């Protein structure tokens, strides 16, 4: 990979964030949704650029973390955005969706955002001065775009969209319920967003064996006195899946 590629990706992320802010200045009431997804994309690009730079410097583990940050941020953000889109006129559900989208701790995009900001700190500690300062500049631009989107997003809760009709309207409550369940569950177990992203990123960077060993160590409490959290997580997921299944069964029985 040419050395200029990470810089270009970082510049694209920073530019996207700044463009989004500039566009909001030009038009007083831009679409809140557009501001939200643009800012998430900008952050994902910045973290991806960070990962590419880590890879160029031979630090595959940090590269995997940065890529995982970008992917998990997008995953949590997209789930929140979808919930927001599916919940017009439902203030509680749309508030929850917005909180997931914005990465309000510990919801939705938060684990990815947190991982990415940590990766920026690692860059400052490990990479050459000018490279890391470039990373910080790009991350600050993305952060500014994020705050801007945050400020814009309030109007989304007040948007009074007409209710949907037709066949799709019947599946809306189920989809909404499943997204809320996923959001709540992921708030207890943030690795629901992070783990698939980590596996994907690690397979891209060749760090998968290391990740699997680390996961294996988490599954068994090797250190005396330290309990593993994974069994509790599995239990929680099993309980959540069962409740969702029961809910779906109950809903379908009522319809029949």
């Amino acid at each position, binding site marked *: 990979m040419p050395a200029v590629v990470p810089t270009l990706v970082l510049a694209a992320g920073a530019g996207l964030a700044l463009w989004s802010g500039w566009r909001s200045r030009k038009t007083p009431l831009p679409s809140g949704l557009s501001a939200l997804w643009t800012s998430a994309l900008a952050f994902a690009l910045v973290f991806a650029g960070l990962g590419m730079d880590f890879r160029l410097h031979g630090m595959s583990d940090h590269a995997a973390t940065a890529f995982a940050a970008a992917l998990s941020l997008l995953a949590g953000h997209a789930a929140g955005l979808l919930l927001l889109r599916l919940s017009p006129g439902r203030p509680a559900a749309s508030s929850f969706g917005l*909180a997931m989208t914005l990465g*309000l701790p510990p919801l939705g995009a938060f684990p990815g955002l947190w991982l990415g900001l940590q990766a920026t700190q690692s860059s400052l*500690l490990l990479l050459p001065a000018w490279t890391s300062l470039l990373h910080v500049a790009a*991350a600050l631009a993305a952060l500014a775009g994020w*705050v*801007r989107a945050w*400020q814009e997003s309030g109007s989304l809760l007040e948007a009074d969209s007409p209710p949907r009709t037709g066949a799709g309207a019947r599946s809306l409550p189920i989809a909404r319920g499943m997204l809320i369940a996923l959001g709540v569950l992921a708030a207890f177990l943030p690795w629901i967003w992070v783990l698939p992203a980590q596996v994907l990123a690690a397979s891209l960077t060749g760090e998968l064996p290391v990740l699997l060993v680390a996961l294996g160590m988490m599954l068994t409490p090797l250190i005396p006195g330290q309990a593993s*959290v994974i069994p509790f997580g599995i239990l929680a997921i099993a309980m959540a899946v069962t409740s969702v299944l029961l809910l779906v069964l109950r809903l379908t029985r009522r319809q029949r």
Partner: protein
Amino acid sequence: MTPLAVFLHTAMIISLGPLLAGWSRVAASGGGLPALMAPSRRISAGLRASGQPPLGHLAALALAIVAGLLIPLFSSDAVLGFLGDGFTALLLLTGLSARYLPIRASGVLAVAASLWALGTLSGSTDLAQALAFWEAGPASWLIFLGLALGTAPMICEVGAPPARHSRESGNPVAPVFTGVTGSESGSDDGMSPPASEGESAPGLNEALAAWTRSTLQLGWLALGMMAFPVTIPLTSWPTFAAALALFGIKLIVLGGLAAFVSARWPKLPLAELGFACSLLALALVKLGA
């Protein structure tokens, strides 16, 4: 035991904010118990205001999640857990109130750059560890100034009472935040909270603003305690009294300084100045070494 302790800690963090605001009011103008409890009453009344269910529900849900499970899952170290808990609660409140507070991008950027500089200075990504290794020096002072000035507009009520008039019509509608620097076009001073709910729920707006501001004041107090540490062995009553006096002096000097600067020069772009200090600190730490 740990989840219970974490829950109690979160409850303390959340409730201390309004109490601190009440205490400041009592210290400034007296009024006894009613003045002490006034901010808490205003917050609870605001959250119970009719037509405002989402934020109240969301706050309760998120608090339950944070308090109950998140921190013990992330950290087995109780102290780190408590620190993380406090910061998470702070972020949570800031997030909930973002629409109602003059959150400026410059302030957020100043805090982010300062924390990155602090981590680089101490060689650790762990904030608690970084604060434990705090040493006085040019970079430390710049970091501290960055944090202080960056958060000052949010902590101190600069430019109050808020103006709620749009640029175009002068009607009491939502001011619009413009640009990545976070300057708002809805008020003369650019510091008034967005009243996007119109005038229908001023109670909630005020309540959330007071809650967040007082909780940020608590965070400021914690930073003041941790910054520039002086080790005093607590071997006797006089040394205990000395440590307590030092804490009081730091509190008065650090807290009073930010309030004084905000009150004396209300038009001063404190957040932007803080951001500049943070960037300078970052450059000094990274390029000066």
